[in-house]
């Protein structure tokens, strides 16, 4: 066979591919494969809203001038950011006043932050540095909530080992009236006895306190480094907390359950007596929290004993690939979550975290998803309507398209959606920094008046 023939063969193939690529620039071939709802035209974001948002953000946000701890802020602003608009800090900061006031008193009481999120926070991502930052400033130790299942916390080098419990967590398809409780999940003992082992492989925390959240009956024995430190009986059919103290942070904790009946655990907590603790509660794949499925009475009962001071909601990532004509129903879902949480935990402040940046390839070019702006808009509307604070994570990351830089600098993973440990540490630090700035402004009374009404009006005028 002569090279000319081979050349003509490949020329034919390459020319056809080139023609296809050219054609593809005009018509997105991907659309052919999209489902009916996806092909509906996506409403472009209203530019007037963006303008209002920018203006109001500038007026209402706490200023970052007293930024103190974040070493990555500079990198993000100088290297990773693509927008000229810098992170504006916590929006509607006045809605966190109760939380800030609690921070001032947490030297003699344990202040609890419950951080709910999707896969973006799995594996103690984001919460690790947020917790560390707050504990450095206000004291406190321990990881807080731990699920009762096989779990290895890499950042803390702490492992939970058990095979005796079955996990039940809130799910979309779930129509039952299960009582999941404050953490949206429970763990049922499979037989009449069982055990949990917690292996501390060098955690830097000096936690002195373990709490077992339960309902049902069981005899409990707690061992720290193989010495029995407590024998107890759990008896409450509704909810109770078994609390046991250590004289020093143990290397291994073993909890044995025996003679059990209907035993459900809602989590284990490792924490201190005072200071701050941040619970990481992740629901992979969730669009929103679905707090209305948690079981209101149980949540109220749990909150009475656990005293949540701040609830953070970090969702939105899973909504991005789910393109819709508008995000009204998503806004309603967030508002339903917030309202349910506040009804069940009236003394807690709420902070809503905006969707992060996420990119995909359009005609061979990496681009931020178009609908993120609308999703963030729906989230801000929900925050306004419910009177809660808002933190724009995408803006903090550096704005539209910043995820591409994050992936390049290994701050985000190659799916252009999830963050690496370095990236989530940076986000945690930025959030911590902004909360501390908000707290400082609250204490110095230097806050600008509440402008959420202004935003609310702007949105409704659209």
């Amino acid at each position, binding site marked *: 066979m002569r*090279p000319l023939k081979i050349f003509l063969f490949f020329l034919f193939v*390459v020319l056809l591919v080139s023609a296809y690529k050219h054609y593809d620039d005009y018509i997105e071939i991907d659309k052919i494969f999209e489902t009916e709802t996806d092909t509906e035209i996506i409403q472009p974001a209203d530019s007037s809203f963006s303008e209002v948002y920018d203006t109001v953000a500038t007026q209402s946000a706490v200023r970052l001038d007293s930024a103190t701890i974040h070493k990555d802020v500079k990198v993000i602003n100088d290297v990773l950011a693509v927008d000229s608009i810098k992170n504006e800090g916590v929006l509607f900061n006045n809605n966190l006043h109760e939380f800030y006031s609690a921070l001032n008193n947490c030297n003699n009481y344990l202040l609890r932050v419950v951080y709910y999120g999707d896969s973006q926070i799995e594996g103690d991502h984001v919460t690790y540095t947020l917790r560390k930052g707050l504990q450095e400033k206000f004291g406190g130790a321990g990881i807080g909530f731990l699920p009762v299942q096989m779990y290895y916390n*890499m950042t803390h080098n702490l492992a939970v080992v058990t095979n005796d419990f079955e996990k039940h967590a809130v799910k979309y398809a779930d129509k039952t009236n299960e009582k999941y409780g404050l953490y949206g999940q429970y763990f049922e003992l499979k037989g009449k006895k069982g055990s949990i082992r917690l292996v501390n492989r060098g955690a830097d925390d000096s936690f002195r306190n373990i709490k077992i959240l339960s309902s049902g009956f069981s005899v409990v024995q707690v061992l720290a480094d193989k010495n029995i430190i407590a024998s107890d009986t759990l008896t409450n059919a509704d909810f109770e907390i078994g609390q046991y103290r250590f004289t020093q942070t143990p290397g291994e904790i073993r909890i044995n359950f025996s003679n059990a009946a209907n035993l459900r655990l809602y989590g284990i907590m490792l924490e201190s007596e005072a200071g701050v603790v941040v619970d990481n509660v992740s629901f992979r794949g969730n669009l929103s929290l679905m707090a209305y499925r948690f079981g209101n009475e149980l949540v109220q009962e749990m909150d009475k004993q656990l005293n949540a001071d701040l609830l953070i909601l970090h969702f939105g990532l899973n909504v991005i690939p789910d393109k819709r004509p508008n995000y009204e129903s998503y806004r309603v879902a967030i508002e339903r979550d917030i309202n349910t949480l506040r009804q069940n935990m009236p003394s807690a402040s709420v902070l809503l975290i905006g969707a992060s940046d996420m990119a995909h*390839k359009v005609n061979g070019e990496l681009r931020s998803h178009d609908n993120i702006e609308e999703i963030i808009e729906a989230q801000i509307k929900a925050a306004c309507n419910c009177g809660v604070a808002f933190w724009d994570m995408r803006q903090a990351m550096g704005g539209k398209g910043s995820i591409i830089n994050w992936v390049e600098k290994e701050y985000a993973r*190659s799916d252009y959606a999830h963050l690496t440990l370095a990236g989530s540490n940076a986000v945690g630090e930025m959030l911590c920094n902004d909360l501390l700035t908000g707290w400082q402004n609250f204490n110095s009374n230097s806050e600008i008046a509440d402008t959420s009404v202004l935003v609310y009006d702007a949105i409704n005028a659209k």
Partner: protein
Amino acid sequence: MLDLNAFLDLFRYSDNAPWLFTRYGFWVFFVVVLAFYSLVYKHVRRRNIYLLLFSLFFYYKTGGWFCGLLVFSCLANYIFGYAVWAAKRVVTKKIMLAVGVALNLSVLAYFKYAFFFTGMLNRFFSAEFEVFNWLAHGWNGLTGSETDTFNIILPVGISFFTFQGISYLVDVYRKDSDVVKNVFDFSFYLSFFPQLVAGPIVRASAFIPQLHRAYSITKQEFGHAVFLILAGLVKKMVLSDYLAVNFIDRVFSTPGAYSGAENLMAVYGYALQIYGDFSGYTDIAIGVALLLGFKLPVNFNSPYKAHSLTNFWHRWHISLSTWLRDYLYIPLGGNRKGKMRTHINLLVTMLLGGIWHGANIRFLIWGGIHGLGLVVEKLLTPLRKRMPVNRVLTAIFVFFTFHLVCLGWIFFRAESFAGVQQMFFQIRYSFTFDALLELWLAYPLVFGVMLFGFVVHGLPARFQERVRGLFIEMPIWLKAFIVLAVLFILKFFEQAEIQPFIYFRF
């Protein structure tokens, strides 16, 4: 109007758009190579120079200005090869060989292991040595540029052309290969673009005779080449890139966030990914070379069908394993110096093979697993010979070998030791079969692709050959149609990020 700068960009190296076999740019380049090939293919010398120039340009587009290093390597090996051949006395031959090999190894060591060895030195002697890039320093002095002198970037494919250089010098010394008297011919051997950046490692004795052979390719060979290229593209873009981005990378980056089932599937997935990546690349390389009239050695032969580690290394990266055998294991004494020495030689060869993959303890452990595995296998050989040969037993051996190889892959791929530990923890403690089922429902396409990969890999060789034969026998228009159909499917698997071939910087 033609944008001059955009046009010139086609000829410049760009960090963001290196030429990979999976990129459109490479195939346009290949069509251009073919366009003028008709003019030169009948004249051997002209053909070799023509392909040499294109190869150097290809390397420049893939690795930037490191093509200077490639030219240096070509010249140095040419001179030493000539000197080995021309020397009259055996001692002089030996000295020339030793200097040539040492030069090759020192270039490799400088670029690849400077940080590793300095780190080790500092750790053991509590010293604070710093690596200084003398090459960049010299370059800065010459050109006034500001290249970072505390950072050494590994040139693309350095191991491959260095190994080929060594193979040439040794082959000339052993008289297994003729000396190449023309510098252009020799440079062409070392820098032939299809195999330049990730192998297969082409032996001087196998390639140099082809330099002087006239061009010839049969219709069957053409069909075979196109089939290999297509299979390579599917392996690289579907089995490797798609699985990596959509599942494997995520699990390996935070193993603790995933269940035991997910971790285990990620390990299996990685076994498929690295196979798809590496063998896909070499399939394309072999196909492209064949279209230009050159035959490269087969590099992979369904490695996960291996029934022992020894058998695995006869099927996996064959050109590297035979290279290690001929230029490392045998010079060390091979199996000629008693059982003990054979075992030590095996272990040393595999440990060095491990460290060749990267300057990291994890690669050393990977080499150790394979080395020890081979030693244990050798010790058990008498026992195994007494066992009956039947399908069930073979299946058990295949299963066991595959899992041992996967154990090695965990160390090979993990991002840190904590990651390895966490992965073992999750697989050991949080594995449930329910989760496995849930996984299938959550990632239907990912696991569909994985199943497809393993099923195709596991098909009997006879069946695979029949499919290949069918394709080869097809009329050319039907071949073109199938090529286009496969490319269309590949578009949907094309991922957001350019995935460099895993073996590129080895």
